[in-house]
């Protein structure tokens, strides 16, 4: 096996390692900061942008050295462990322990901590091409693209379907970097750089020793969770940590404390406000939030059955093992997506209690839309009650919160005759076709149900004047929140920014400026790749969003969609490589194909929005990314390595993908809805089509 072959294998190794590290990094940042769509988009954005810069930087390096490549490849393999450790340790070194920082500090933290690795990743791929070409002239950027895709697919599948279920992040890093590290060592050895090899070998030994040492990994979590970690699991849905302090448990999901023992106030408010409205409670559906005192409070009504729907089996497992989910014969745990379960309409309930966080992600917004309320009503018995809560200050309602509450109020009001807001610790929404009574303590007295908080504090905290004030404050003109126009997410973003007294406008302005500057200097074909990267990430976000809305958030299926996107790139790249001599025709056909696919999406979103087979989503994702994959080798061939090395093409693709992630995920869908997002993608693609057409005419 020649040195060039080893380098080629290392490209695949880089793909396997980098995609896993990317997924681990996103999860890590979500565990460190507030996990809304903004954080997710920021991580992806920084990743793609800095990779793009790395690719551009590789243009600068004239001399190609296999030794340098080997060192870079080794660093790329080893660095992720340092990166994740650094994220965990620096978080509390820079920010105040326990604090959620605002937009700009989070952005700069993500940028700085992920920059070194992502820069290497962006740099090494085009650099590898340059090194290979030094000995093998026939090797093209298109082939490199294929190899990279093979690595990405392998890494993505390994991580999403196998490793995430069984291993912790450090071990996953060690396993997915193994191939890259091994090849790097082999390269150094083949080059007979023995001193370098000794150093490299020693580094690798230290790397694996730390990666597989459980105590080391746990120690990196101590800053965030303290030393009393009882259980630490990584589930596909996030990081589950259980801590025990002075005999009391706190449950953490992706870094946020979601439950602490002895939280009587929340348990009573959540359960009694809706259930005391009913003359008879036969069966209750609880969507999330079943830990602690919740079931004890529900059981005071002696229901025949309590169905408790929870998405993450790991959460239930850990809670059961620690006694936080005491078994009751009436309680039936259903491990699935709550929205999906309600949509199936298997059973009818006296009450549905939704205990979820604020609608600040696409996943959560699905529980606050007209489509959801429609389906929820469908599974409620006659005069049954639906209840959920949103955060608001009981002493003052700010403009943005009036907007948020009004929007949800108007949305739910469309399906229930009566909607009552009770300003407790949070604002509780009660919706029913039957009568609703705000005098909760009286209703409880009538049923002889004893409570600690409500009977003692309700009349003082939730006064008639406060109830009237909040119900009167609802603005009937506020818009309706829908699945495909999730405008409440935008309000949540505004609320988030207001909390920190910052505005994203500077950020958006600076980005637009940089983008215009970049687009001004790139070649026509590079713009085509930029727009393709933009559209690819944009469509991926749209598909994931639509799929979740219709079928619910099922990890394996969402993972399968992402895999379809990755899988499509490979045959696309192979075909592109085969047809590259046909040049602009192929580029043009791929453009038309993408535009057609986007038009189909738009028609579906505009007129149908009906349930389509799941397979259609998978096929759509595969087809779109196939067309994206076709374009890369063709564009590379048209431009030629002399005029623009692979670095420029990779950069265009990555920068486009970064811009697409941010524009579609955080701006267009929340602000204007799914249709507007598709139209924006059509315009972006249409512009690149025009560019190609114009090139034809000139010729």
């Amino acid at each position, binding site marked *: 096996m020649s040195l060039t072959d080893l380098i080629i294998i290392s490209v695949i190794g880089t793909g396997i390692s980098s995609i896993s590290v990317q997924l681990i990094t996103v999860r890590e940042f979500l565990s460190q900061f507030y996990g809304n769509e903004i954080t997710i988009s920021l991580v992806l954005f920084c990743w793609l942008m800095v990779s793009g810069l790395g690719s551009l930087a590789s243009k600068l390096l004239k001399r190609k050295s296999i030794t340098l490549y080997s060192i870079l490849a080794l660093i790329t393999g080893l660095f992720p462990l340092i990166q994740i450790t650094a994220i965990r340790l620096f978080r509390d070194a820079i920010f105040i322990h326990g604090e959620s920082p605002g937009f700009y500090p989070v952005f700069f933290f993500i940028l700085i901590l992920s920059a070194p690795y992502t820069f290497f990743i962006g740099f090494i791929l085009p650099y590898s091409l340059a090194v290979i070409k030094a000995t093998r002239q026939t090797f093209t950027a298109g082939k490199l693209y294929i190899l990279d895709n093979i690595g990405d697919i392998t890494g993505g599948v390994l991580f999403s379907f196998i490793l995430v279920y069984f291993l912790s992040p450090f071990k996953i890093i060690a396993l997915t970097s193994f191939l890259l590290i091994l090849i790097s060592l082999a390269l150094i050895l083949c080059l007979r750089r023995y001193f370098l090899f000794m150093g490299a070998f020693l580094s690798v030994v230290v790397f694996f020793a730390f990666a597989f040492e459980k105590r080391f990994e746990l120690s990196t979590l101590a800053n965030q969770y303290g030393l009393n970690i009882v259980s630490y699991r990584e589930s596909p849905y996030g990081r589950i940590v259980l801590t025990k302090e002075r005999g009391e448990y*706190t449950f953490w999901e992706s870094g946020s*404390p979601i439950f602490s023992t002895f939280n009587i106030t929340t348990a009573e408010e959540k359960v009694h406000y809706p259930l005391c409205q009913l003359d008879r409670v036969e069966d209750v559906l609880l969507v999330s939030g079943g830990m602690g005192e919740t079931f004890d409070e529900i059981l005071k009504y002696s229901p025949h059955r309590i169905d408790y729907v929870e998405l993450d089996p790991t959460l239930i497992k850990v809670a059961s093992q620690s006694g936080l989910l005491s078994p009751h014969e009436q309680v039936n745990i259903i491990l699935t997506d709550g929205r999906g379960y309600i949509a199936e309409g298997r059973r009818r309930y006296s009450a549905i209690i939704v205990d979820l966080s604020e609608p600040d992600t696409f996943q959560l917004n699905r529980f606050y839309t007209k489509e959801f309320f429609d389906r929820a009503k469908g599974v409620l018995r006659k005069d049954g009650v639906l209840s959920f809560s949103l955060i608001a200050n009981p002493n003052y309602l700010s403009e943005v919160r009036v907007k948020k509450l009004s929007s949800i109020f108007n949305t739910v009001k469309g399906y229930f005759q009566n909607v009552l807001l009770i300003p407790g610790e949070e604002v509780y929404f009660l919706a029913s076709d039957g009568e609703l009574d705000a005098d909760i303590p009286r209703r409880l007295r009538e049923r002889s149900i004893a409570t600690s908080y409500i009977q*003692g504090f309700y009349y003082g905290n939730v006064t008639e004047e406060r109830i009237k004030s909040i119900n009167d404050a609802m603005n009937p003109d506020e818009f309706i929140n829908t699945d495909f126009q999730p405008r409440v997410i935008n309000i949540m973003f505004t609320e988030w920014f207001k*909390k920190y007294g910052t505005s994203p406008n500077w950020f958006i302005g600076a980005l637009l400026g940089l983008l215009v500057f970049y687009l001004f200097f790139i070649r026509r074909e590079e713009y085509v790749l930029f727009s393709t990267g933009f559209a690819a990430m944009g469509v991926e976000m749209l598909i994931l969003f639509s799929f979740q809305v219709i079928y619910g958030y099922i990890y394996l299926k969402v993972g399968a969609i992402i895999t379809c996107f990755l899988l499509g790139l490979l045959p696309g790249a192979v075909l592109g490589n085969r047809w590259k001599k046909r040049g602009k025709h192929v580029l043009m056909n791929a453009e038309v194909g993408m535009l057609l696919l986007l038009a189909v999406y738009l028609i579906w979103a505009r007129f149908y929005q009906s349930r389509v087979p799941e397979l259609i989503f998978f096929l759509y994702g595969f087809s779109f990314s196939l067309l994206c994959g076709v374009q890369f080798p063709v564009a590379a061939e048209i431009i030629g390595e002399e005029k623009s090395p692979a670095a420029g093409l990779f950069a265009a693709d990555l920068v486009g993908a970064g811009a697409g992630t941010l524009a579609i995920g955080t701006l267009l869908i929340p602000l204007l809805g799914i249709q507007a997002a598709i139209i924006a993608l059509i315009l972006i693609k249409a512009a690149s089509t025009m560019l190609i057409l114009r090139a034809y005419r000139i010729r």
Partner: protein
Amino acid sequence: MRRYITRKEFLREMGLLSLLIATDGHCFWGKDKEREKADIRGRVFKGDAPKKPWKWSIEGFYYTTNGEDVQCMVCPNRCYLTPGDRSVCRSKVNIAGKLYSIAYGNPCSVHIDPIEKKPLSHFYPATEVFSIAAAGCNFRCLNCQNWEISQRKPEEVHHGELFPADVVRLTKERNIPSIAYTYSEPISYYEYMYDTARLAREEGIKNVLVSNGYINKRPLEDLSQYLDAANVNLKSFDDDIYRRLNGGRLQPVLNTFKVLHEKGIWFEMTTLVVPGYVDKPEMIKRMCGWILKELGPDYPLHFLRFFPRYKLNRLPATPVRTLEELRDIALREGIHYVYLGNVPGHEAYDTYCHNCHKLLIERHGYYIAKFNINHGRCKFCKTPIPGRWGS
């Protein structure tokens, strides 16, 4: 222009970059001492004042001038404002060389609460209190539950119009015995509070200050002549924590307690037990030692359970056991009345005689099930019970 760099140059640049990163990293690592000094205290808002006073403005009561510049003397921030500047608390502005309070008669929150909600356990139990707030605060607490009014400018919030006379009239009409200046930070709307308190006193209505206690001596002494009670936060007994979590300093708050004590104002102290910060037994012991030495054992101390709020939302709730332990420490040290808050149903809501330890007030939330105090004395052993009990 040269387009490429050589390998050697590249390696040198990378080396320099690594060195830079390493140096930066070292700065972070070696930051322990600096971390201790982390400070989130607010800053003056330069050039942020409105062009002219609005309807709800009044000239500040305590300030000095230096030409066109002014310095607010109400709180220890002592904001030095050049023309056009706005104070840390956001409620004071320098307009053409005069200091104005722009939070006067424009409350953004008006409610009627039980007195126990402030919390005040020894001040006319089971009575109502007319509660008002205008926007602003001289602190920056990371866990503020009222941040939408405390961390906002008066112009940024929805507000009503209730000038001091209106507040007093409404309170009287509703037959409520006291007015509380609460929710946000009353020291930031000092002038509004002062004038309302003065009029309320004339009408026989009591005045209650609910505050962080970050106020200078003279304004506090002047206000004290109209004050009947206060609940003042003693957020911790550590200046570093005050700076890191609250954006203030400890000593001025301690001075406030001393002034209130000297002036004979009834007050109770509240400490939010933030896990990892305000839950150290040693610190609570020191705090109790100071209270006993400077204020005596009679002022009640409330330990509140922390729940994740606002920006400080990645900490767990305080374990109830921790609260109980701190309460035991405070009682052992000699504080006569130590209560727990945010733990519904806990026996530490009740009042026990510090002499005979019998149950004086049994509380079910805000309701009183048993009341064994007669004319301010324990019904059992006749010991005077500190507080204001009425008839």
